[in-house]
């Protein structure tokens, strides 16, 4: 049996600093700064609660990101399953001790932060799957034995998150997991078959949805069905974005958000506010920053040697893409309203924490990109 040993080659600190992806850091800082301005605007141009909190969180989590970036990628690999299990335990804890807000039980009170474990689970699933597929031989990937395990690993957290209820995060977790299964090379026919199966079972799935979820989906297809109720958010969001025009209404001049027509403007609808104030131009620039971020993450995967790092980076890039796409498509009225924050931009500790955590693993993949990880 040929065993590849971990090349515990000793990188010097300078080497490590050299291999840091500075563009990635710059992108994070850029999006982070934009988010501070956007959140400042949601408060009507007052430096108060949300802005302060967001800045504190950004700096704390950014520092955390920098520190964790120097953790060996093999360490992440070793603890991948542990990460997943901790996430699962936290999700179960939420089910029992969670605190509720607006009809959903999603958080654990950690005193300094209300932790939303489902956000961490988004990352945990990716690491877990990256490790899982890292060690599987490509010949084994197509076998049912090795397919059934990740499916179970995916269904458990998704089910727990749906129970909270949080359809959006659950879909994002599932999406990230499926993305890795796809990357690992599972035969396309499985995806086609399961896609058809989902289509067929969609009517049944809808029938077991909660009434508010149903109404959101119905409203998505026709927002004018209930313009002051379920359709209100979509309509107001479209009005805000549309009225922004090419150059936007100007910073701190977004009437829709300033006059409180926009719901949840500092969380899920932060893009709406940004787009109203900075217009088409600003929106495209922000979108471009996200594309660059995704590109940089993919790039790290490409230069990494280990499958774990590759799978993780590609998977995480896809996850980021999914978060951005689902959020923006949602506020543009292209997708039903499901709770999905915009990475880094949206106010929310857990989401920011999980993104930073995910990014730090990416960075560690970059720093230790030559590291080979043995299978054991």
């Amino acid at each position, binding site marked *: 049996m040929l065993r590849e040993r971990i090349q515990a080659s000793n990188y010097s600190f300078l080497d490590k600093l050299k291999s840091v992806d500075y563009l990635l850091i710059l992108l994070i800082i850029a999006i982070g700064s934009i988010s501070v301005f956007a959140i400042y605007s949601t408060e009507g141009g007052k430096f108060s609660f949300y802005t302060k909190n967001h800045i504190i969180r950004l700096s704390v989590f950014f520092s955390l990101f920098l520190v964790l970036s120097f953790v060996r990628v093999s360490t992440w690999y070793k603890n991948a399953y542990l990460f997943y299990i901790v996430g699962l335990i936290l999700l179960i804890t939420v089910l029992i001790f969670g605190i509720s807000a607006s009809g959903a039980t999603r958080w654990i009170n950690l005193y300094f932060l209300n932790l939303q474990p489902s956000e961490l689970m988004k990352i945990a699933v990716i690491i877990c799957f990256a490790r899982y597929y890292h060690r599987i031989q490509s010949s084994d990937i197509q076998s049912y034995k090795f397919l059934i395990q990740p499916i179970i690993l995916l269904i458990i957290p998704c089910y727990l998150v749906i129970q909270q209820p949080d359809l959006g995060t659950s879909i994002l977790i599932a999406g990230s997991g499926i993305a890795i299964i796809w*990357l690992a090379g599972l035969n396309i026919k499985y995806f086609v078959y399961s896609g058809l199966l989902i289509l067929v079972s969609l009517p049944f799935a809808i029938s077991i949805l909660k009434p508010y979820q149903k109404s959101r989906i119905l409203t998505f297809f026709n927002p004018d069905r209930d313009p002051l109720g379920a359709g209100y958010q979509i309509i*107001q969001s479209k009005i805000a974005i549309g009225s922004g025009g090419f150059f936007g209404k100007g910073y701190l001049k977004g009437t*829709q958000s300033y006059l409180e027509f926009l719901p949840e403007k500092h969380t899920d609808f932060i893009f709406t506010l940004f787009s109203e104030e900075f217009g088409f131009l600003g929106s495209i620039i922000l979108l471009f920053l996200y594309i660059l971020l995704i590109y940089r993450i993919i790039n790290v995967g490409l230069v990494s040697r280990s499958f774990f790092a590759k799978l993780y980076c*590609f998977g995480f890039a896809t996850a980021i893409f999914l978060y951005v*796409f689902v959020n923006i498509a949602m506020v*543009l009225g292209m997708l039903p309203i499901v709770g999905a924050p915009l990475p880094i931009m949206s106010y929310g500790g857990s989401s920011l924490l999980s993104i930073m955590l995910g990014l730090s693993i990416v960075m560690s993949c970059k720093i230790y990109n030559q590291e080979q990880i043995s299978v054991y």
Partner: protein
Amino acid sequence: MLNRGRNIEKGRVITRRMFILAAAKVLLFAGISSRLYNLQISDREKYEILSDKNRIREWKTPPQRGIIVDNFNKVLASNDRVFQLHLILDEIKDFDVTVFKIKNIIGLDKFEVNKLYKKKERLKPWDTLVVSDNLTWEQFSKINLYLHELEGAKPVLSTSRFYPYSNDLVHVVGYVGDASPRDIEKPEIKENFVPGLKVGKYGIEKSQEKSLIGNYGIKRYEVNASGKRISQIDYIKEKQGNQVNLTIDIEIQKYAQELLKGTAGSISAMDIYTGEIVAMASSPTYDPNKFTHGINQKDWQEIRDNPLKPLINKSIAGLYSPGSTFKPIVALAALEYGTIDPNKTIRCKGHKHPYELYGIKYHCWKKEGHGYMKLRNAIKQSCDIYFYEMARLLGVDKLSIIAKRYGLGTNVLGEIYNDEKNGLVPNTKWKRNALEQSWYLGETVINGIGQGYIQTTPLQLCLMTAQIANGGYKIKPHIIKDNSISYKDVINKIKLDQSNFPLHERNYLDDINVEYYQRMYHKKSNINFVLDAMYGSTNEQYGTSFKSRYDDPKYQFAGKTGTSQVRRITDLDRELDLDTEQIEYKKRDHALYVAFAPYKDPRYAISVIIEHGGSGSKAAAPLASKLIKRIIDRHKLREQINNGNTSLA
């Protein structure tokens, strides 16, 4: 080595799959970008409008109503300062609590509180509820004192209609009140309406609504999602309604009302050339100020149940048989058609030997009879027998042509008063059409003394008198000042008409239409004959209004009395021969009087009617006499104003 090869293969799969995913991502991002393009560039305008609709809300501010002034620019209807209490509904947390507090502070009763709740139901959550539009100073200061406890309450200084001459003008100017749903449907009100705006309910206020109402202002506020006002963006100032000038002289009007006090009746006075109505009094009257803020039940009942019917504008909506005031027209018609030689003598033999036609007896009002009468004397002493015979000879159809031409039987002021009556000048055709009966000669006979079917309004009688007094020219009566009609112009037009005399090819004995300021007579001498007879009636002994005469030529006037029966006089009545006071009020005769003054170079015509006042010479002529003096005293002033010398106002 095998492992290594497999690993390379695995790496390739992963990378290939990543690129497929990346392509999908690019596509989806392109989708987002095109959606953004659609929303922000293609449909921008649509969303901008929606956004403005969201954030901008308009509040209409009520305009001040135009004022109404008399001929001398004295204000007849103004806007007075009032104290109001408004509630801004979106600033109130608990409506019940606020209403309870207000109820205690200004002392509302249960009924008024219920009214508030009903009002609130009709309003939108960001509307303003007017709790009271007319607080006393005491209530207003109390509200201000407790204002800190009353969130959403707003004491407001506003204006409301005020009629300084309260009772004296209500039948002319009218009054305002809350708009009814039917009022709001009218275009002139619909265009300018603001909730709470008072609109004209009667008279000038109603018919001149278009001028008076003004244009509302608009206050645009930026509001937030819950409708709370954030800032004022725009204020288009409201525009006060236009001033309406009347031809009324408030001094004359006041005096006329004073003369009528305690009676049911009317006095109308008119310039016989310009047609300007100087006074149009109706009695009894009521206070229009009571209607502005909604009249209370007790006051309303009092007005409604008054047997003298204050709500009827008697000058234009009261219909009366003209009685003997019709005689000048009968005489004129008979002369014009050559029916009678003015020197023809008829003997009035009193009640013992009445006029008889087909076995029916027609009596003269004078028991003893007038003796031998010629036409002039018959007018002067108002001998009924002479007129019975003359009417019989003339025929009702010819009479009706002349009567209508001089203004009887048609509405005088057009659309200004919606309750103005046409009256009725009967003829054979009318009776056939309306009653489907043929005309009886006996009806012609009583028509000759202004009884029977004939019905006229006091203003029509005034117009009739004016058009005889001005020499038989058609004038345009009006109550809203028309600067295009001046005395000089009218005189010039009349002179022009006279100089065109040979050009008139028309037969004035036919039923023809006459234009304004053109002659209506066939022979001028006939008009002069009638005027002279009316002079006799007032200024010569045995004339029916001899006692009311002035000898001073400045005030000297000529007129004709009338006593119109409200029921058939039976033989028993004639035997009893009761005084007016002895008869039940409702059965007493109406007293009428028409006159023009001064006799030489006349300028004004006047008509007086006292309902159930008894005889015209006793009840009506003295009032006319008093008023004529006042009108003539003020004539010079009026002329100065009308010639553009307004400094006197």
